[in-house]
């Protein structure tokens, strides 16, 4: 019962924080510096790890597809399989998981420290709402950067699949044939669906991580517990939202 109360309380405070933050959207132009800083942290610093992981996910997909499809002579469709899998599912989910682990945890740790060491209280006594200064610029930056990261993940993943398809002896498909297959079965809508997913995941992760950080009470141990809770909640949220968003977009 207590656990249920806590979950409902967390849900309620997250929704409140969402409305408060959206209400402060008109202040974005005068917080442009903070917005750019968050774009840099959320987008630019996450880019290398997104590129490395998506390259290998694309490569493994091509390898597994080549190994399975060789048996029934469908190797020429590897490009389509890698392309669709990356664009519709793996690209956005992987970027979201990285965002939760890398950015979400950092956001929770920072805001939880500010709460524990009374910096949030200090902001409130200065009549500076934390939702305006700390949450809204992060949400806005996530909305801008998530599609960018997802597109880069898709492109690098497709490229990784192409390289593996060319240089693996039992596959040996040239890049032009690989990309022709990729284009043949994939539509703009597939990519768009993936970008919408990435957007929804990113927004939910940053909102939840901010809320958990801002509601931390206690000391250093509670900061660590909040970070763990934020990452675990984000990961669960990604998978739950993935099902519902996929169903809604079908």
């Amino acid at each position, binding site marked *: 019962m207590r656990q249920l109360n806590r979950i409902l309380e967390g849900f309620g405070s997250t929704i409140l924080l969402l409305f408060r933050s959206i209400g402060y959207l008109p202040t974005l132009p005068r917080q442009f510096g903070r917005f750019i800083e968050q774009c840099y942290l959320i987008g630019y610093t996450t880019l290398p790890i997104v590129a490395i992981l998506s390259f290998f996910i694309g490569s493994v997909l091509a390898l597994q597809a080549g190994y399975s499809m060789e048996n029934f002579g469908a190797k020429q469709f590897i490009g389509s399989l890698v392309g669709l899998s990356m664009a519709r599912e793996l690209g956005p989910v992987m970027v979201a998981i990285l965002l939760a682990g890398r950015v979400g945890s950092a956001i929770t740790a920072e805001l939880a*420290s500010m709460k524990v*060491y*009374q*910096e949030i*209280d*200090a902001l*409130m*006594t*200065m*009549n500076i709402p934390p939702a305006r200064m700390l949450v809204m610029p992060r949400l806005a930056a996530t909305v801008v950067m998530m599609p960018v990261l997802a597109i880069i993940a898709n492109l690098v993943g497709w490229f990784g699949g192409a390289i593996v398809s060319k240089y693996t002896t039992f596959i040996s498909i040239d890049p032009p044939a690989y990309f022709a297959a990729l284009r043949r079965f994939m539509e703009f809508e597939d990519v768009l669906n993936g970008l919408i997913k990435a957007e929804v995941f990113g927004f939910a992760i940053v909102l939840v991580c901010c809320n958990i950080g801002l509601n931390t009470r206690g000391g250093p141990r509670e900061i660590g517990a909040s970070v763990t809770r934020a990452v675990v909640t984000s990961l669960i949220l990604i998978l739950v939202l993935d099902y519902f968003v996929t169903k809604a977009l079908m």
Partner: protein
Amino acid sequence: MPIAADVTRNPFTQIESPAVGVTVEHLSKSFGTFEVLKDVSFAVKPGEIFVLMGPSGSGKSVLLKHIVGLELPTSGKVTVDRRDATEEATREHVRMALVFQAGALFNSMTVYDNLALYPREHRIGTEAEIKEKVMHALQILSLENAAQKFPSDLSGGMKKRVAIARALVMEPQLMLYDEPTSELDPVMGATISEIIATLKDEYHVTSIVVSHDRDLALAIADRVGILMGGKLVFLGTPAELQAPKDPRIADFLNPKIDLKNPRFKQLET
């Protein structure tokens, strides 16, 4: 220039505005089943220094948070300048600043940016005007050389002074201090007490100080309140405090170290 009793003078613009008073009426606060404040009532007059004393855990800091609107009462009411302290509009109408026990400085910002945050966020003046105000506040607290330092580079005493300077930039009509002299050496403690008294004398800022420091209370307070177990057990002048009738207050102000019958042993039973 002398200042009238019922006005506060802005330290930057020298403009005078009515000083604000605080009223606490039958305030009670519980966290779960634990009652921290029990029917506390008192009033702080405009422009006075009111020192709130009491043992650790008696509810002093919680009371301070009620005045600034960070906590909601379980029952009772707190008004600042005759406005409900829980309402956001009160914080917009009355400029009040809280100096936190640990400073609560923004660790990711320099001292200068810590002070400039309030005017920047509320768009009070141009960047040049903000700079002038921040440097003036730093100068009042003898901190000019610390402007570009980060809070992690400062000593405990400097952090407290920066926190006071940051509060000063808000041009407050009401200053609240939470344990301003704790964790400081006696000389630095005296310096902070002098700063609080100077702000009152020169600018007539209404001040509420939560402290354990008996010397501070006797030296700078206009009136003193003592909280014990969540109840206000004393309200009077520093002179009245020097001859308390209540033995608990006498023991709190002048504790005798008794090695033969130590207090912690009495607490065990």
